[in-house]
């Protein structure tokens, strides 16, 4: 119990700091904050005063900050200059796309990375081991935006296997249910009793961006798994398990892997940040309508309310994820419970 309490108490100053940064940042931008936040220029004084009051910028700075936080907590993060929609609504509309992409990418990275790492640890110093280590090093030295382009070049342009952009063929009209196209297309196909073409289309659109986004996490996970497994396999209790007559599979998967997974879970937490980073770049390349592309576009179009609100929400999501990972770690490691 004390553990959870401490975690939540730590959360508050962090969120406070992030809100402060977002708040201050907008006011640091060259130019008049009122005009920046509304996006108009050359307004007459009366209208200017009106806008200023509407934005609450006629209050004192501390009061402004208080209202900023108050509004943020209730979901009011301002209005986008470009689209005139509420920032929050735009986020909600786009978040599922990034969530689907990120989850699929992480899934790909874990499903392939962990077994590769285990195998490399078992067959230490073999050709496979060296090959894996070198390729993973190349993997995280690559610029992700270039890698995405190369994948498009090979699979979409030259081989014509996958589409170049978007989430689904535009001819399909899918009722948005969860926002996760894989689920929505399945649900729609079942309800309408039509073929599964929309599902396959969604899947085809998802594969390449996921591979692009998931490559660096794959490299990191494979390395981490290998070194963690090697460390665990050298422990005394592994020798005991062998001496008890446990089969090699059992020793690796039940005795070793469980203990080796602990640092891997921590790595996954760190990877989440890199997924968001990668998503920003990957979504731009694949024209994937998620929050990454949203933030980039808002910067190039000087949509300040979106930048301010978007960064705030994204940071909040990341901080929450880190806490969730800490909780999972707590449950995985019995030693922590005492």
């Amino acid at each position: 119990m004390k553990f959870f309490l401490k975690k939540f108490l730590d959360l508050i100053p962090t969120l406070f700091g992030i809100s402060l940064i977002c708040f201050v940042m907008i006011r640091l931008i060259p130019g008049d904050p009122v005009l920046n936040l509304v996006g108009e220029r050359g307004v007459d004084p009366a209208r200017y005063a009106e806008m200023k009051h509407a934005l609450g910028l006629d209050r004192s700075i501390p009061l402004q900050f208080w209202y900023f936080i108050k509004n943020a907590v209730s979901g009011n993060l301002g209005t986008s200059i470009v689209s005139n929609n509420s920032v929050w609504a735009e986020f909600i509309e786009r978040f599922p796309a990034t969530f689907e992409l990120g989850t699929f990418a992480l899934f790909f990275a874990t499903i392939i990375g962990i077994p590769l790492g285990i195998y490399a640890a078992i067959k230490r110093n073999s050709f496979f081991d060296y090959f894996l280590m070198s390729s993973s090093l190349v993997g995280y030295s690559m610029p992700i935006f270039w890698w995405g382009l190369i994948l498009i070049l090979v699979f979409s342009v030259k081989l014509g296997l996958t589409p170049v952009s978007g989430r689904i063929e535009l001819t399909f009209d899918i009722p948005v249910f969860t926002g996760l196209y894989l689920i929505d297309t399945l649900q729609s196909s079942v309800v309408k009793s039509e073929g599964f073409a929309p599902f396959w289309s969604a899947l085809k659109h998802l594969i390449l961006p996921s591979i692009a986004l998931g490559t660096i996490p794959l490299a990191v996970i494979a390395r981490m798994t290998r070194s963690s497994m090697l460390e665990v396999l050298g422990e005394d209790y592994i020798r005991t398990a062998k001496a008890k007559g446990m089969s090699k599979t059992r020793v690796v998967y039940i005795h070793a892997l469980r203990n080796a997974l602990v640092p891997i879970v921590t790595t996954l937490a760190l990877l989440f940040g890199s997924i968001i980073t990668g998503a920003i770049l990957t979504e731009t390349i694949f024209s994937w309508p998620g929050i990454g592309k949203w933030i980039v576009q808002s910067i190039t179009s000087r949509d300040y309310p979106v930048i301010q609100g978007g960064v705030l929400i994204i940071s909040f999501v990341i901080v929450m994820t880190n806490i969730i990972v800490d909780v999972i770690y707590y449950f995985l490691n019995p030693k922590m419970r005492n």
Partner: protein
Amino acid sequence: MKIFFNELYFELKKNRGAMIGIVIIFLSVIIALSAPLIAPHNPTEVFADALRLPPSFIEGGNAKFFFGTDDIGRDLLSRLIYGSRISLAVGFSVVVIALITGTFLGVVAGFYGGIIDRVIMRFTDLIMSLPSILFAIVIVAVLGPGIMNAIFAVAVVSVPNFIRIIRAQVMAEKNRQYVSAAKLFGASNFRIMFVEILPNCMAPLIVQASLGFSDGILNVAALGFLGLGAQAPMSEWGTMLSDARSFIESSPWMVTLPGVCILVTVLSFNLLGDGLRDALDPRLKKQN
């Protein structure tokens, strides 16, 4: 100190990857420094009649432009060579700024502890809670696009790593006897921190510097790709990739080559950093 570097080099030589990294870095520096001499053309010179030519060894290419030309007729090879100047300069600047700032803050935090430490760590955690690119983008959004702002932004997000590493090392060292001895001799805090303790923290610093170089290049290239870093007509590799996007079908070499350059450069620093880490690790244990 000299013995330290001699021993380090000896250990490092054993690691083949690190040696390859050093060779590549060395070559890159040579290329970057001698760019005006070895580049066949001026990187900004436009050849209006030679738009989007493929590399000379492919059908349709022109021997005058070894790697072909880009969409407005500039020689790719020359642009890539000048690009190495930018990337190496960028990596260097980022590391220098982050290292000096991070080391200073880390030493102060580790040495004084207490509230100074808490404040600095809060600040560090805050920066680290945002993904690096996002924060860098935000900073550039505030300051405006451009390569100098990009370098500054990337340096800011690189600082926390340095702070953490130095602080940990300082905290381990400050209870050692030579520190108590220095205090007894009346050395000022400043002297103890920077003259006594800091030289013993070189090992992790060097590793982080090498890895920070590669991260710095990648991050600035990413900003360039998003249009927030180096601006035209600068031939920064990331910016070149962004220009090449529209021509992925017609001129794939425009896409492939700058990325390969980034990859090789970053890889060489990662190899070096990994090698340094392996070479210094047993040393770290020996030191303790």
